[in-house]
């Protein structure tokens, strides 16, 4: 099992968490109801204390092991300085304005792209978004430290760029309707199969 982009990952996560949410609400509701009953209720399942503790530990640690093995950008991020990118793009931000490496970035499917972003004043964010508003990925952009993100694109798409961190009201037009840091259709990924992956 491998998630090749955030849409797949978050769809899985949405289903898993929704099931969990209904489960915990139902358990407490069942528990509350039976607290008031005189007759001794029959346990559906008996969970010993140490099994419960083991379950919590396994849940906490297992979650990270699961994501490490199913989300490709985790190991790529940790070892990014040992990976030679196919292309590097340098960005700068000053007073809520981007200095872009080029007007449009075309990426071939499966290429490893390094995004280097420098802030000259405030803390910003660097985030790519699909045309339906869903997030592809993001990182924080701190002034005075390195902000580099290596990303492998496995699905075709056209992505907008904006700052994902609040940096004051001047990110917007006076009436608030326009995000002045939004760069529409900056990145385009081509050459992937319809369902993702290299052709």
């Amino acid at each position, binding site marked *: 099992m491998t998630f090749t982009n955030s849409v797949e990952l978050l769809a899985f996560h949405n289903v898993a968490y929704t099931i969990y949410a209904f489960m915990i*609400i139902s358990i407490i509701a069942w*528990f*509350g109801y039976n607290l008031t009953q005189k007759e001794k209720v029959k346990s559906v399942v008996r969970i010993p204390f140490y099994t419960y503790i083991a379950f919590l530990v396994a849940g906490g640690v297992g979650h990270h092991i699961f994501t490490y093995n199913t989300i490709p950008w985790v190991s790529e991020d940790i070892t990014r300085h040992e990976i030679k990118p196919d292309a590097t793009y340098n960005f700068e931000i000053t007073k809520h304005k981007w200095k872009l490496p080029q007007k449009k970035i075309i990426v071939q499917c499966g290429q490893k792209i390094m995004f280097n972003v420098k802030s000259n*004043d405030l*803390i910003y964010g660097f985030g790519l978004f699909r045309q339906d508003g869903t997030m592809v990925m993001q990182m924080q952009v701190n002034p005075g430290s390195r902000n580099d993100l290596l990303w492998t694109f496995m699905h075709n798409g056209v992505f907008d760029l904006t700052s994902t*961190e609040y940096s004051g009201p001047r990110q917007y037009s006076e009436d608030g*309707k326009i995000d002045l840091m939004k760069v529409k259709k900056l990145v385009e990924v081509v050459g992937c199969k319809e369902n993702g992956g290299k052709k």
Partner: protein
Amino acid sequence: MSFVNTLINGTNFDHKSLNALQKVTLRAVVMSFLFFGLVAIEGMIMRMVVTGPANPLPKMFSHPEHYFSIMTVHPIVGIFGSTYQLVFAAFMFLVPFLTKKPLYSIKLANFVWLSITIGTALAWIAAFVWQYAPLYTLYWPLPADTEQFQLIGGVVFVLGVALIMLGTFGFIYNIYATIFARVGVHKDKTTKELLISGFGIDGMLNLWNKLIGKQPYSKEPALALPVVAIFRGTVDTFLDAIVILGAGLLVLVYLIFDASGSPLNVATIDALLYKNFFWWGLDLVADGLVLIYVAGSWYLLATLITGQKLFMENVARAALMLELLVSWMVWSHHLLGDQGQPEMMKLISGEMVTAFELLTQGLALFITLVTLWKARPLKMTMELKYLLGGLVGFGLAIPAAIIQADMGMNRVLHNTQWIIMAHVHIALIVGLYMTLYSALYVLWPIVTNNTKMWSSKLSNIHFWLYLIGGIGMGAFGGMAGLDGMLRRHLYLNGEFNTYMILAAICGTMILIAWVIFLLNIVMSVGIKGLIGIFLPAEDKTASYGIEPEEIAQNHKQN
């Protein structure tokens, strides 16, 4: 009795019968719920704005300066003005009540609620009048950015927050001075014994002795378990206050130099280092004192509701110690999206230690549930209902956070509505506040001398509206986050309006619930009683539940 008559006189509330400790507690409770109303209105304004062009509010609320100034004070009013006030009031009542000792100082308790109230009001004024809007995160150097914000706004905001922190120090001093006072049941205890009990070391030693087949270290610990939780949580409250005050002073120094015409270079302060420092402190609230105080409150409520001993008390004591240590080492989960943050810190502090919160909070949930279960059948009272609501809240909110405290998930969820709605709002609105409502229903007869609540129907309506509204708002906001909606961003073109309309409907339920709750309280104590709470107490007693001669003896020993 007519409605108007009850509105003026209440049910059977007599403020003159209250002693000084009861009155100072109720003063803070009143202010806390007024601030809760303010924070609910602020929240609803923000919810409405992001529903899109059809939102009926005046245009000024959509202007970025205005919108983000509301977003800046929303957590200040909610966390400090409302939650801190309520928690501090409850604990300054509970510690004397549980230890059977007088509160160290009523004057100091009055200073606490007054300084937090005035401080919160100042911070709110800074945002409302001068639209100072660096958000509660105060990410450097934004709070010192005088190109975007007026200097006077920054100064007033910092003074407000500083005043809140001074009030917090007052609370801390009052709590520890009361716990360490060697009077009453503690007159023969040494400071060392109280410290060992306060840190839960006696619980650990009891567990260890049991393992090696020895007699328990202490059969009767010096401090009751809820007092241990208050003791332990207050350590984090202190450290957090130091950090926030330190950040405030830094901002103030820069603003003063700016005003003098010789601005300091903001780049001198490393933004990432500052972020680490600030999140370390701020996380002592979110992942420290809140969780510890809540666990302690659950234990207290479970024992008061059932009238029985807590299940696995030694484990609970030891777990509170573990929670304290965990809370000092988890802040890096806020910096998983910061590429300059060392990977090892992300991995150990951000992921692994943070995952321990699942264990500590899961343990507290388990102990509370088993304590209740062993005492069944129980009557489904309001306090029990709210306690179960609180358990549901944290049962939902903690895993929501653990999911995001992961390097893979964080890359696509950081700064989205997921964390602020599915985690923070459910944890605070449902988990924390429902626990506090449960405590309020338990303490109500004690603090008000058996005042009859005006309407149990209204209490029930409040419960259901609040529970459904709280979970619903968090859930719909969280879903918007999964679809890419950012948390500190302005959306005016209806980008996520289906979720936002549903979240706004649920938010309205919370607001209506608050109005109903307030009506019930006002009708119970009456307007005369409400005013009377703020008049000086004739009975200067600073304790509750101790016989008069015992109090006199305690005072003599002081």
